[in-house]
């Protein structure tokens, strides 16, 4: 019996031809620039068309990883990136799960809350940054006024680097929590209701229900969310740009790459575009994502196979 729907002979090529546009699109938009970044990292590219490109071997990597105090600053940015990633991933994951379970209840008006929690996702980073810059304005802004009622004050985004980064973590979570929540909701809605009914009849406590039914059956969603949160936070840079700009002690790797590539290392000094150097930094970030992402994915897949078979 022939289950092949596209006939015989040359017609068998049809599915491949149908896949070709998508593959070409992926090649041009995703794979091509990624490979080009790798190649550029070995050059002194400025990103300006018409300038001579010189092959400089591992010089950009040497400068990024081993040259003077700047390389130590880069390591500090790397540590900051990991701290940012850890905080964002753990808090966003936990809050997303809690919110999903709350708004997955059959309660009146629950869709309004789903919409409210998801709404920040549809705003761009610039709008998100603008909203919080206004909200956190230290001279009479809403939060400053609120703190003032209790005799407290804060510089918020203009405060010490650790405080400023804490606010970026907060805004990053606020901006992306909706996606995490929706992925969990999608998972929660696939869990058969009779499992919960059975557990209820058996007298299981809410914690036992969560631990033995909800959590194991959410495994695919847990994996998706964890990977998305880890990779997303490792690559974050837009909110750092919008909320903090280039400030010593606050850069993460993603923002460092942007600043070097597009000459924005200082608001008052005209800088050169160093896209070869920025490409090398991108490859370092890529390696970091790989080193963290691959073992996590391996572990999560093993866990999924163990639980769901």
């Amino acid at each position, binding site marked *: 019996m022939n289950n092949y729907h596209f006939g015989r002979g040359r017609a068998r090529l049809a599915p491949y031809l149908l896949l070709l546009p998508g593959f*070409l699109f992926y090649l041009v938009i995703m794979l091509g620039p990624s490979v080009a970044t790798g190649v550029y990292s070995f050059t002194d590219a400025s990103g300006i068309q*018409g300038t001579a490109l010189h092959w400089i071997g591992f010089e950009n990597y040497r400068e990024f990883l081993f040259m003077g105090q700047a390389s130590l600053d880069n390591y500090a940015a790397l540590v900051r990136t990991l701290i940012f990633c850890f905080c964002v991933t753990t808090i966003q994951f936990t809050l997303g799960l809690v919110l999903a379970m709350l708004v997955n209840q059959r309660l009146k008006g629950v869709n309004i809350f789903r919409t409210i929690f998801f709404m920040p996702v549809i705003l761009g980073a610039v709008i998100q940054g603008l909203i919080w810059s206004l909200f956190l304005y230290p001279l009479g802004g809403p939060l400053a006024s609120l703190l003032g009622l209790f005799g407290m004050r804060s510089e918020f985004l*203009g405060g010490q680097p650790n405080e400023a980064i804490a606010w970026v973590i907060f805004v990053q979570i606020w901006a992306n929590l909706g996606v995490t929540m929706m992925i969990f909701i999608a998972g929660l809605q696939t869990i058969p209701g009779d499992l919960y009914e059975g557990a209820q009849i058996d007298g299981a406590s809410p914690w036992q229900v969560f631990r033995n039914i909800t959590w194991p059956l959410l495994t695919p969603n847990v994996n998706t969310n964890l990977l998305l949160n880890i990779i997303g936070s490792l690559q974050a840079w837009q909110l750092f740009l919008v909320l903090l700009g280039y400030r010593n002690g606050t850069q993460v790797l993603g923002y460092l790459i942007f600043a070097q590539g597009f000459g924005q290392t200082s608001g008052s000094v005209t800088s050169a575009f160093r896209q070869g150097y920025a490409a090398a930094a991108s490859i370092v970030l890529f390696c970091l994502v790989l080193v963290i992402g691959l073992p996590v994915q391996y572990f999560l897949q093993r866990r999924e196979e163990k639980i769901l078979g």
Partner: protein
Amino acid sequence: MFKRSSVLIGVIAMLATLLAACGSSTPAAPAGQAPAAETQAPAAAENVTLKVLIHQNPPMVDFMNTFNEQFQAKYPNITVDMAVVNANDLSTVTQTRLTANDVDVVDMFGFANAAQPYMKNVTAPNWQTLIDAGLLMDISDQPFIKNYDDAAIKDAGTYNGKVYQVNLGRVSYSGIYYNKDLFTANNVAVPTTWSELVAACATFKAANIPCMTAGGKDGWPIFVGAYGLIGAEYPDQAQLVEGLWTGSATWNDAKSLDMWTKMKTYAQDMMETGASGIAGDAAPGRFASGAVAMFPGGTWYASAIDAAQPSFKWGYIPFPGSDNADENKYLFGKYDQGWVVAGKTANKDAAMKYLTEFSDPANYQAFANAVGFIPTQPGATLSSPIGAEVAPYLANFRVGYEQYWVAPKGAGEFANPYASYFKPFGTFDDPQALADKVQADLQSGLDANK
């Protein structure tokens, strides 16, 4: 049969769509060769759209809108399509649009930060790379060049003996705006020395009036505001940069330590609480509200202050960084906006008409009046309020450190004389510790390039 044909047609259509989407709307010229249209200036009656790119500066944008209307009335066949971008994005957008040959005339800051013979292993500044790539046009032979003073053309628009930019004005950033009413009400004289400035701030603070404000959230306005402190110690800033590179000057010697000590006072005692959260573009409004006595900042803020509160009375003085009043009569600054023409423009004739018209002395004077730049045309005068304030110091105008400085590769992030490194803007509290850190960060880069 019909099914197969449909599938094949569908595949071909999708491929065609994809290729069309990836393709350029116009055939690209080979590298190093000008597009065909470049050699053919449009005929006088031919309709031309001239694409102009400028950065966000409200009085300049207002002036340009009026100027463009006048220009289009004079040349009905030319339509000006002007785009305005944030100053921080100007270099990125300029590069992108020049590369795509999607712009004709661009507003570019005066050429600065060029590599000097004593600098080792530094990257060429962006403007130099653009010229080397053939993306900016040589305008040396244009008659309107003669309208500008030689120094401005040479210092801010020339590279390898050819002119690529007409610079439209200098700005000073080492001054302080002061609130005349608050000074009078509190019986405070305009300070001419550092000690007088410290005393003035003490008087205002005692009266529960914040002494100074600035856009601390952006970091650089704090540095710019304290420029007079660097200037007081190092009047010749080109020499300072050479000294830092060659080792004859350091950021932690006795002279510099005096500067850092004053910067600490400036950042911690003079700046109002909360200034670290004020964005750069919000600071003029805060000053114009009348709540603060002083606002250290550049001459470009004058129009924003007036726009925020037209009846507000302010004055502008050089930042008194020294206890010798004679050493405080300098204004440090930079060459601000200038015009460059895209090297591959198809509208060269229209672009040159545009710059010729702009450079007409009457139009230029109107521009200088509107934006408050210190003019670069010899015949232009300073008729704006900020012009009147800076006029006494124009003979003492000097180009500032940041226009000469290029950091050695490998230098740490603190290798600059920024007052914003002090708390609450930064993390440092002790001038000596900060001075040592700044010098160590610089030395690290210098050593790495030996």
